[in-house]
């Protein structure tokens, strides 16, 4: 058994060294094996052998750099060239032993990784049978409870784009303070204050232009009667303006501003306490004048 083990060590040496001194080295080992009896002596013998191999092996390989045996194909220079470390053909038993050792090592490695993942936190990235999607990790910097804790991520706030109609009618834009395209009950209650923010000239009332009507540069060429008529049409056409301008004079007076909440509730057709776009668009709301 010991001799066979030492033969394995000898097999690590370059072939030329084995050819010249393999038998003598084995003989020397046998001599020591015979002479050195007892557990301690045998242990010392093996320590010596392993240390000797570790020291002398690199020396022998440095002495004889690997001679690559070359083999040319049949047609000489044009053919392929094969290189091999050792000109000797390996024994069949050596090939079989090598294959068996390789298989055993791989099976052992797979079993080790499968079982050690439960107990060896340093195997980060190894397969975990129960929670394969979680990498096992251990750190003293983070409390265990934090590692097990659940992190809830608040969803990104979604702001629907402002309705073009709400953008066009400044009154609606002012009433819809949270820009969700819905005039909620609270926003209805807050309507007087919201409407007052549109009073740019601070006359206490809202003209058609302050409510969203736009004439642009054409305004200068319009006569007063046409302008007044256009304002009346604008204020009557849009349900929210028509509701707020309860006397239909083409502007929302101070009293009408104060009464805005009551006027707006008249538009709540489905009585859900809020005003949605379908209740505010012209020609949709049956209460449109």
């Amino acid at each position, binding site marked *: 058994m010991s001799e066979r083990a030492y033969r394995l060590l000898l097999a690590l040496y370059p072939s030329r060294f084995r050819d010249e*001194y393999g038998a003598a080295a084995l003989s020397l080992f046998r001599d020591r094996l015979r002479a050195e009896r007892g557990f301690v002596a045998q242990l010392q013998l093996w320590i010596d052998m392993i240390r*000797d191999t570790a020291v002398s092996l690199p020396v022998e390989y440095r002495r004889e750099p690997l001679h690559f045996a070359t083999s040319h194909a049949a047609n000489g220079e044009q053919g392929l060239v094969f290189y091999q470390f050792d000109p000797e053909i390996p024994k069949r038993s050596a090939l079989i032993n090598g294959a068996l050792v390789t298989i055993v090592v791989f099976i052992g490695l797979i079993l080790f990784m499968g079982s050690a993942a439960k107990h060896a936190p340093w195997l980060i990235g190894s397969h975990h049978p129960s929670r394969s999607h979680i990498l096992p990790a251990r750190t003293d910097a983070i409390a265990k409870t934090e590692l097990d804790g659940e992190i809830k991520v608040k969803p990104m706030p979604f702001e629907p784009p402002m309705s073009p109609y709400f953008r066009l009618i400044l009154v609606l834009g002012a009433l819809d303070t949270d820009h969700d395209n819905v005039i909620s009950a609270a926003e209805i209650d807050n309507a007087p204050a919201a409407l007052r923010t549109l009073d740019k000239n601070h006359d206490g009332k809202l003209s058609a232009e302050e409510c969203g009507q736009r004439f642009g540069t054409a305004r200068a060429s319009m006569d007063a009667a046409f302008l007044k008529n256009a304002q009346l049409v604008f204020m009557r056409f849009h349900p929210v303006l028509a509701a707020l301008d309860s006397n239909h004079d083409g502007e929302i007076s101070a009293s009408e501003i104060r009464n805005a909440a009551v006027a707006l509730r008249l538009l709540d057709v489905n009585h859900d306490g809020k005003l949605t776009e379908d209740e505010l668009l012209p020609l949709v709301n049956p209460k449109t004048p």
Partner: protein
Amino acid sequence: MPKSKLDPLPSAAFHILLALAEDDLHGYAIMREVAELTQGRVRLGPGTLYGSIKTLLEAELIVEVDERADGDSGGERRRYYHLTAGGRKLARVEAERLADTLRLARAKRIFRGADV
């Protein structure tokens, strides 16, 4: 084999030359002789021993003599080695170098006690 491998002379090679100074020996006998000379401090393993022997043979500091049957190992035939004149000279030079080093160490009083 270039002699640069023996310059400086490795400790194992020097001990082998010393072991062969008085008699021709085979490998295992050289190992035992070295262990005895050094009171067990130097134990040459097979790899180191035969690697050094190979180097010494190539430098012609030792030569291989005819194989002989060894009585201690049941008549097994063994290769014996013989120290050449060149080997003896190199061993002497190395010993003198070490002696010089020893004198230097004494002069520097790095030793303690009166017996050195």
